[in-house]
């Protein structure tokens, strides 16, 4: 991510130190992760010490300090999804992508994450990719859905 874009995002929030989290969220949603130089730029511009930014960036799960894949796969492990076979869906995704929850594959295609409830238990087991919900997944369907993403 180029630093000019980071500057634009900071300017959009009027360079207020109180908008720190909003700025970080904007960078995260555009870039999918928070590079070190971007964080340092934010710190200098908003006049917030780097330790504080680092604390916040490691505190919230929404932020990532390591590169994420182009497609973020979230598998619901909530009670309803668990009972309806979320573990098998997860296994299928792990087999298809070769990564464990919390990891990103080498060509930055997928990042895999387990979540505790996506709030649509009637559709369980649920898999969410880039914010799109795929409900009532079977292992077979899961593999099919993954193939649609490049």
């Amino acid at each position, binding site marked *: 991510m180029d630093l000019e874009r980071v500057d634009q995002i900071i300017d959009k929030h009027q360079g207020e130190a109180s908008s720190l989290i909003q700025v970080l969220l904007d960078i995260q949603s555009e870039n999918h992760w928070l590079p070190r130089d971007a964080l340092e730029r934010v710190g200098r511009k908003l006049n917030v010490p780097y330790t504080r930014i680092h604390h916040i960036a490691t*505190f919230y799960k929404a932020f990532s300090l390591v590169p994420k894949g182009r497609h973020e796969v979230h598998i619901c492990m909530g009670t309803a999804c668990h009972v309806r076979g979320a573990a098998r869906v997860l296994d299928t995704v792990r087999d298809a992508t070769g990564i464990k929850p919390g990891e990103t594959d080498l060509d930055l295609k997928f990042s895999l994450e387990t979540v505790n409830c996506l709030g649509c238990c009637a559709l369980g087991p649920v898999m969410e990719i880039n914010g799109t919900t795929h409900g009532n997944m079977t292992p077979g369907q899961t593999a099919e859905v993954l193939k649609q993403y490049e």
Partner: protein
Amino acid sequence: MNEMRLTIDGREVTATEGMTVLEAARSAGIFIPTLCYHEKLEPYGGCRLCMVEAETRGRTSLVAACVYPAVDGLLVRTRSEKLDRIRKTILELLLAHAPESPVLLDLAAEYGAEVNRFEHQASFCIHCGLCVRYCAEVKQKHAVGFVDRGIRKEICFIPEIAAKECPDCQACFPLCPTSYLQSVYVLTEALAFPASAEAGKA
């Protein structure tokens, strides 16, 4: 300045507005144990060891003395069976992280806390935040900070800042109740700026 009168352990204590219960007690020479309190720093309320019973209008509540503002007519008890039990448990939980800390062991002897009551978890840091806050508030270097949260929360030096500021400062070292800070620093030094450390010695 508004003068306030409160009773701490049966003694009349006067306090001025803006003082905390802990400061009022200290000014009267009444001891309340603390780990995260430092007179130069903003109150943090992290260690909870300064827990006291505060009674207003007949209601007693348990409050952290270092962050609880002194109010007129407040009745404070700094030692009771209940408080001793609470402090003992807090100490036992902290000792699970730093079983060898001299500060903790002294307090443990005072309150009868058992070092081995809880399974030891070798984190050594008790999250008092003294180093982090001292570096930020007094030195304003922001060389050390917290990362992550909950059970994975730990302190971390920022190598670039630490290499520049820490070799000549190290004012946070004596503050640490467990010596964990020093080991984190040595690790950072070894990983990030070993050469400059050699130059400093020569």
